[in-house]
């Protein structure tokens, strides 16, 4: 990735070792970045190098490699903070195990401390299970109300009754970009309306952060969660960003070493700052990999990434429409600036599972299923879609192979 000024697809692809592999004798067409993105060699190498030259546990050692490991781990917090436009990553970035744990932390720490029977929070019907189940589990314990923003026929949020839903609510927790529909939600205005109603706003940025600039200060949100493995980083690590004032007031979540100031037989005193939420040995190697992913994306420029994927999405939407007309359906809004690169395909009479299976033989990797969004699937009236989702390494040639493979699928089952 040297010397890329504009978005140079060929150069980007060379950074991803897996793309030079074959699948069933064909070029691999990876269209499953929405589930997990491939890591570039920069990330793989950063992790391997850390493991081979530096590894030590963090936060307590005074010897050379332990100091360096601690420095790298804390630097990752700053890198993520900067990437998100946070003013002080070191005070606001908590490393979890994945995006899902970030929502569990939010629910069981902030939620437990702030929600009572009679209170309400607002979610949307297009949420991923990660932003549903933790609230349902908490609801079972505390008995507050969960209100749902519906979905229009255009597959966008139905905001017609938002004032009503927000009335008296304490939190709006909502996805920035739908992992099924590709709908990009209007976070700035949602944040404004939530705050005006006296509610906080948390956003699920798992499908947003890898694809477009996200700035927590500009968006004026209170909490944000995402998954490094969806932004070309490693598995085994997740991120919760929270405004420092809020984070400082939150009680601990998981208990153990590292999150305490003191432990006695009769109780403990929790630590301050992000550490309060990081019990036990943290994902150190993974934080190093995440830093590398942040640097990688910064070197490409998130504006350039966004433009590239926007153009590709437009190409895909128009090509699929032209090639298949109404014989395949896409669950999502029509093309436009608020349409992300997620194509949820359904074909009458052919189950998504079968579609994906046949696509595989063409080297095309898509994901069939409910995409951890069962309430949304019920709302859409489908039990599964075959989802193709774009990453920085995808190009129009990938869409062309997808089209070829879809034709073959329809022919086989026709």
């Amino acid at each position, binding site marked *: 990735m040297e010397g890329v000024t504009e978005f140079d697809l060929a150069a980007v692809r060379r950074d991803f070792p897996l793309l030079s592999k074959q699948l*069933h004798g064909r070029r691999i067409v990876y269209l499953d970045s929405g589930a997990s993105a491939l890591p570039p060699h920069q990330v793989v190498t950063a992790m391997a190098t850390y493991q081979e030259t530096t590894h030590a546990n963090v936060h307590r050692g005074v010897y050379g490699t332990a100091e360096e490991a601690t420095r790298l781990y804390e630097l990752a917090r700053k890198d993520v903070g900067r990437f998100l436009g946070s003013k002080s990553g070191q005070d606001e970035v908590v490393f979890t195990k994945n995006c899902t744990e970030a929502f569990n932390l939010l629910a069981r720490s902030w939620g437990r401390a702030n929600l009572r029977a009679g209170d309400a929070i607002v979610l949307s019907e297009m949420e991923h299970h990660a932003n549903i189940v933790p609230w349902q589990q908490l609801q079972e314990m505390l008995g507050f109300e969960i209100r749902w923003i519906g979905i229009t026929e255009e597959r966008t949020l139905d905001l017609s009754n938002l004032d009503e839903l927000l009335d008296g609510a304490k939190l709006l927790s909502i996805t920035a970009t739908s992992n099924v529909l590709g709908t990009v939600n209007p976070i700035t205005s949602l944040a404004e309306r939530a705050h005006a109603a006296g509610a906080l706003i948390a956003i699920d940025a798992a499908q947003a952060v890898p694809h477009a600039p996200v700035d927590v200060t500009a968006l004026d949100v209170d909490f944000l969660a995402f998954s490094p493995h969806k932004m070309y980083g490693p598995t085994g690590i997740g991120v919760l960003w929270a405004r420092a004032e809020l984070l400082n007031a939150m009680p601990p979540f998981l208990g153990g070493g590292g999150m305490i100031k003191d432990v006695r037989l009769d109780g403990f005193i929790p630590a301050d700052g992000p550490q309060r939420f990081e019990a036990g040995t943290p994902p150190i190697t993974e934080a190093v990999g995440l830093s590398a992913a942040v640097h990688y994306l910064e070197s490409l420029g998130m504006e350039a990434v966004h433009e590239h994927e926007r153009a590709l999405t437009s190409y895909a939407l128009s090509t699929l429409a032209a090639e298949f007309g109404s014989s395949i359906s896409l669950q999502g809004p029509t093309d436009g600036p608020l349409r992300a690169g997620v194509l949820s395909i359904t074909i009458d009479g052919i189950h998504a*599972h*079968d579609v994906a*299976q046949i696509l595989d033989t063409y080297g095309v990797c898509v994901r069939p299923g409910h995409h951890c969004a069962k309430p949304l699937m019920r709302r859409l009236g489908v*039990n*599964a879609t075959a989802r193709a989702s774009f990453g920085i390494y995808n190009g129009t040639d990938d869409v062309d192979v997808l089209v070829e493979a879809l034709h073959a699928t329809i022919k086989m*089952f026709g």
Partner: protein
Amino acid sequence: MADLEELYREIILDHYRNPRNRGELQPPAVRVEGFNPLCGDEIVLSLLVEDGTVADVKIAGSGCSISQSSGSLMSAAIKGKTVEQARGLIATFKQMLSLGDDDAIEEGAEPVPVNLRSLGELAALQGVVKFPVRIKCATLSWNTLAQGLDELPAS
């Protein structure tokens, strides 16, 4: 791809497009739901057993060609059979699909010979073995049947 053609044999696609014994039965038939959380496939099995024999069976639900054709093939295979025979079929069918199982391979176990002929049309599902993720699709209706047989009122 040869494997793919093995998976989607004509007979499977036929049972997918034209499922046999489609529908639900009223009580006293036993009704059992099977569910594959990974892909959302559902099987609703209605089972009427009289005098130890599967007098009638119906299949509802929705899912992929493998899960649905497997249900259809199963319904045709067990209708008129005794409960014991149905249980035997479950075992044989599962054996056919577990030959490629990690466990067996790892522990160097000898593959158990399956009498494919005894499976009749069901043998068409053998191609699934090459697609480990789809084995759950193929066995869904069979696990549901096993549950249904367990839930039969003691006669």
